[in-house]
């Protein structure tokens, strides 16, 4: 083992939404923990340079410059002028696309927890049993009862506002008070109850504080979350888990540290530590620990494993199954319908709610809702609003006084519902690092191959049709379907490259997110997902992380790892 200052009880690789949880849990259990982050540090509040800007404080009206779009053709799809500093530069961080895949990344402390969409939904046994029932891929090694108390546990700290609905297929979280629906949304909910009594319309479940929690303030309804919140009113590693871990005195945080590989000790049959490239000094440093939590993101974690070669594991650490890097999933979305509404001309709202409405999955729940043409399902996110100047300008021809009068007054009411659909795990959707091309640090370039399948394509049609059907039958006019064709990665819900499973021959992780092959390595980011469900996945990563930390600590105490 190396010298003392490079030796820790635990190493956490990555500081995003799951890495932050690993650090908090392990530190609170008293373990001396090193958190490694490949990018720069981002300190809560201090490093949110645009958080208090007015619209006129930006040069380009919150649009992207040609220079930004040329240098970062992928990231600029996801960012704008106000939050681009939380996304990488594509030129500096290239990867290869064998088929179109938009890999959106934020290399900094906090990772993408700074810019995430904050929607939080539990998975249920409908999801955990799905692979087994459908004979798809492998079965999840856990069921809802295994994770349910851990959802409770993390939700109490994250702070999720939402409305209990008592649905078995979308279990309620431990909620802070729900945000309110506006007049049109309430109307839609009531009409849905009459026209589609079996479908639920609820307020979005979001990791924004509707009331203050611990040291974090309540949401101020600015809807500028992705710039970083100076009130700490949404959950991020920076606002929540990292400060909690720091408070224990057990955390050491090292930014600018690219983990090149996890080192494997052939004698102990365990990981001994990690080899890090310090991007400030360009030196290689080794750190050692008893346990390692790998939380470098679905694609990042698979990369590190594949790049960690040893005599025992010539194809990557813990890859005896050959599954690492495979079964890559992302939700398919950007499809739905919008419509206009003629009433409520005298009603408006104030404040900018960083949240919308949600219609939980209603397909393939049981025999009555079973589809003949596809399996699994989708949920809708959306909202009602009065058209603002941007929409009014796009819809109104002409110019001059009359145009201006329309532009500066509230437009008519409109509604939009957009679907997020489950994607099946396909072995051929994968990343690999087998080519000769290298990045500026001499590390092999990652290459992605990803395509949606027939099940997604057929489902997509129903996503569109069922959206417009609901709007038409609930009394909206000018109903328009849309399909903006997402490609893999667009949803930024990558999952599945180191899946959990019962059988070590066909999966990478066991039911505790512990590697089948290497007992002191735990992986609790999106790569562990055995299926994608259709819910926004981050909440599940958080619950699995807390659960795995509890298990790892008890195994450590027992001397098992």
């Amino acid at each position, binding site marked *: 083992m190396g010298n003392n200052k490079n030796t820790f009880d635990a190493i956490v690789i990555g500081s995003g939404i799951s890495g932050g949880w690993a650090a908090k849990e392990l530190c609170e259990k008293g373990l001396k923990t090193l958190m490694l982050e490949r990018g720069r540090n981002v300190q809560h509040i201090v490093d949110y340079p645009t958080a208090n800007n007015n619209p006129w404080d930006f040069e*380009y*009206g919150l649009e992207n410059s040609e220079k930004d779009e040329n240098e970062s053709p992928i990231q600029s799809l996801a960012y704008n002028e106000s939050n681009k500093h939380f996304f990488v530069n594509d030129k500096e961080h290239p990867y290869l696309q064998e088929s179109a895949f938009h890999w959106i990344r934020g290399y900094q402390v906090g990772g993408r927890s700074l810019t995430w969409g904050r929607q939080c939904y539990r998975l249920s046994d409908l999801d955990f049993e799905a692979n087994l029932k459908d004979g798809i891929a492998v079965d999840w090694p856990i069921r809802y009862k295994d994770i349910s108390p851990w959802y409770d546990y993390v939700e109490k700290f994250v702070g999720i506002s939402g409305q209990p609905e008592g649905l078995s297929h979308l279990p309620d979280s431990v909620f802070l008070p729900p945000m309110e629906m506006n007049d049109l949304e309430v109307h839609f909910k009531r009409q849905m109850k009459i026209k589609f009594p079996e479908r639920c319309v609820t307020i979005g479940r979001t990791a924004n504080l509707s009331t203050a929690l611990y040291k974090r303030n309540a949401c101020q309804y600015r809807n500028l979350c992705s710039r970083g919140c100076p009130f700490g009113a949404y959950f991020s590693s920076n606002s929540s888990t990292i400060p909690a871990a720091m408070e224990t005195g057990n955390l050491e945080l090292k930014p600018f540290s690219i983990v090149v590989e996890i080192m494997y000790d052939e004698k102990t049959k365990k990981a001994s530590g990690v080899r890090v490239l310090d991007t400030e000094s360009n030196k290689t440093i080794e750190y050692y620990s008893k346990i390692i939590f790998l939380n470098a993101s679905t694609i990042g974690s698979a990369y590190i494993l594949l790049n960690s070669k040893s005599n025992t594991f010539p194809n990557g650490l813990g890859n005896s199954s050959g599954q690492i890097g495979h079964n890559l999933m992302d939700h398919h979305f950007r499809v739905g319908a919008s419509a206009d509404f003629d009433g409520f001309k005298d009603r408006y709202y104030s*404040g900018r709610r960083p949240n919308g409405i949600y219609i939980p999955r209603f397909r393939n729940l049981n025999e009555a809702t079973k589809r003949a043409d596809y399996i699994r399902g989708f949920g809708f996110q959306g909202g009602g609003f009065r058209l603002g100047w941007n929409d009014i300008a796009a819809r109104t021809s002409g110019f001059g006084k009359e145009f201006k009068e329309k532009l*500066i007054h509230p437009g008519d009411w409109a509604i939009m519902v957009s679907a997020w659909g489950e994607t099946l795990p396909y072995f051929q959707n994968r990343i690999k690092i087998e080519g000769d091309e290298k990045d500026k640090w001499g590390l092999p370039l990652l290459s992605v191959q990803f395509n949606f399948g027939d099940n997604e394509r057929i489902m997509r049609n129903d996503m569109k049709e069922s959206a417009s059907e609901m709007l038409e039958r609930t009394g909206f006019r000018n109903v328009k379907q849309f399909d903006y064709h997402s490609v893999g990665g667009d949803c930024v819900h990558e999952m599945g490259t180191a899946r959990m499973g019962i059988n070590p021959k066909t999966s990478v992780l066991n039911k505790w997110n512990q590697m089948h092959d290497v007992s002191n390595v735990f992986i609790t980011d999106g790569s562990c997902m055995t299926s994608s469900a259709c819910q926004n996945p981050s909440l599940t990563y958080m619950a699995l992380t807390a659960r795995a930390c509890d298990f790892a600590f008890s195994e450590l105490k027992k001397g098992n790892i």
Partner: protein
Amino acid sequence: MNRRKAVKKILLLGGGAAIGYSGIKGYNLFKNPDIGLLNQSVSLLNELAETIIPVTANEPGAKSANAGSFIVKMISDCSSRKNQNNFIDGIKDVIQYSMFNYYKPFEECSMTEKNNILQHFEKKGKFSTELFNKANRFIFGDSFFYTLKKYTVLGFCNSKIGATQALSYDYLPGKYIASKALLPNQKGWATF
């Protein structure tokens, strides 16, 4: 027909033909854009923007928000070469069209004349069916009028003057009120 009118008619035909062609001259879409002319056009662009969003009894117009400077910046830094050329060619066309038809620069035209000129460019910028418009935009880029209107609106509504004096701007709402009565002359929210 007096001589002046006859000359005008000939010029107009020639000018019209040239203008008609500039929309489908594929070969010049990627030429080096005349950024020099663009930078000299701030006051013209402010007048064009003011024609789109004019000052009214109670609210300022686009000129007071200096939408012209914003448009120049957006064309210089945030537009494809194709759209830069379309827009700068459009500036040239406006200069010519005003001179041919009203014998004076656009800035010196009356409100009615300015409206007539912009109506001409709005009509010229689009086909009668949306499908053609989409295909046209995809191949040839955005029309002059489309871009002018888009950036006038963006520049005005995001400016301090536009957001706080023409629209309603709430820097720190503090709470969300889901339902409230619309007040008389209620302005729309500047940010969403």
